């Protein structure tokens, strides 16, 4: 069974495809768009995207599984992405991850039972001057210590 996109989403997809000489080239932006609407990319979404771009579904699966920002399972409402790369670890970034694990009672890659938070360890986010840093959804937070993390979490209601 295949999912049907709304007329509005279809229109936005067509606006994206118009930028490229091949419909396949619109795949990453379209997946971002669809994931933004649905929260994650299930096999149904993959097939629907494949159909609208005229691709075999496997071409969509290949891409979804290659890129770390595409997710095939639902994430928490707040996706906490903590950098553990070199510049952040030189600024004691590991303790941010440990602090969040203890606070939320979940491991890396897990979501809290209430579906509010997902905790992910990520590679360099390109904000090393503010190390240690993390992203909450698409917002950057830098110069973190456990106290600052607490204040950020307070605001995520």
């Amino acid at each position, binding site marked *: 069974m295949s999912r049907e996109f709304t007329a509005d989403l279809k229109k936005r997809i067509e606006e994206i495809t118009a930028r490229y000489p091949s419909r396949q080239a619109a795949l*990453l932006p379209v997946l971002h768009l669809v994931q933004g609407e649905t929260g994650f990319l299930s096999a149904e979404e993959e097939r629907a995207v494949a159909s609208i771009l005229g691709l075999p579904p496997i071409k969509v699966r290949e891409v979804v599984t*290659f890129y770390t920002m595409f997710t095939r399972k639902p994430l928490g409402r707040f996706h906490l992405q903590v950098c553990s790369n*070199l510049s952040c670890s*030189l600024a004691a970034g590991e303790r941010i991850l440990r602090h969040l694990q203890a606070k939320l009672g979940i491991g890396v890659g897990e979501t809290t039972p209430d579906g509010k938070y997902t905790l992910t360890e990520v590679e360099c986010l390109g904000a*090393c001057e503010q190390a240690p840093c993390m992203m909450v959804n698409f917002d950057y937070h830098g110069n973190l210590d456990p106290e600052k993390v607490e204040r950020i979490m307070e605001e995520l209601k």
Partner: protein
Amino acid sequence: METKVLTKDFGLDHLYRIGVYLEQGGYRAVKKALTEWKPEQVIDEVKKASLRGRGGAGFPAGLKWSFVPQKTDKPKYLCVNADEGEPGTFKDRSIMAHDPHLLIEGIIIAAYAVGIHTAYIYIRGEYELIARRLEGAIGEAYAKGYLGKNILGIGFDLELYVHRGAGAYICGEETGLLESLEGKRGNPRLKPPFPASVGLFQSPTVINNVETLANVPFIILNGAGWFLERGSPKDGGTRIFGVSGAVNKPGIYELPVGTSLREIIFTHAGGLKPGRALKAVIPGGMSCPIFKADEVDVKMDCDCVAAAGSMLGSGAVIVIDDRTPILDVLSKVAKFYAHESCGQCTPCRLGTSWIHKIVKRMAAGKGRADDVETLVRLSTNIKGRTLCPLGDAAALPVLAIARKFKAELENTMKGNA
């Protein structure tokens, strides 16, 4: 001499709005290039300026442009590499956030020089808010007639789009970027053919880094001689060095190409944090071989850093202090490349994961006596044996750490056992 060129207006409020940018003399370089110069004059001037790529490889930009055939029945493309995935690097983010119109100006001039009518900014997916800022700036540039059809009435057309990646270091490699832009996995291509002849959608393509293009308007306005005076003779202009790690003032520092690494760390970035001493430094992003504390009297231009056994890379200086065990640094390097190898070439796919496995057991106190030697052998077998530079990027820092810090690594292993 005022050294800041690219970043000199970064402190201005709302510089990212075209009104403010125009008040600072913005888009004068586009006007000058498009109305007073022929395309080949632009290429010649950029060649004379010795503008070298700011993304990592340091290839001369003007030369790259000249490889694209002037006459072809295919469309030509410009891809702006804004993937900025090299650990330690954050300079392009600062350019795009503060001064997106400077990048757009550089794009218009490059496109005019090479005869390109479609350009894509491939930006890493995490920079979503910056992608939106770029789109806002592009919209303003269209409204003012700097993009679109018949720019400045000279009959030159250019369409510019922002294309977001989705989290894959390999897409910063130029042919991985092309595959990704075409809607596929970012598996790098076999070269030749080079992108200048067969690139995006099988067409001639130029791929330039953000900072590289942001320099172009200044070369047009002030000339190649002015640009060369600001840098080294074979490597003109300034570089935006991004300093991170154990320094007092991490941040971006725009300085003449050829500034010494010691000066960057101790004068501009404020030296090491209190009570720490310099142990080592990675001069150009994680893929560049490490320098020990006594190797920092090196001029930071592409050729001098290469002669000293490393690479200027993206100018990302990562400073490591004496309290950090070198095994921790090695662990980060090993984990990153094992994660980011695209898996296409066997030496890289297997080699990076074997290296990671060995480093993990060293850290867990289960290291074997010959592990450091094995790391050297493994990385030597990756180096030069892969389609793309990720293999070298993974191998070279491991080799450098294993060779320069062999005694410390073996001592740490004994201590962990």
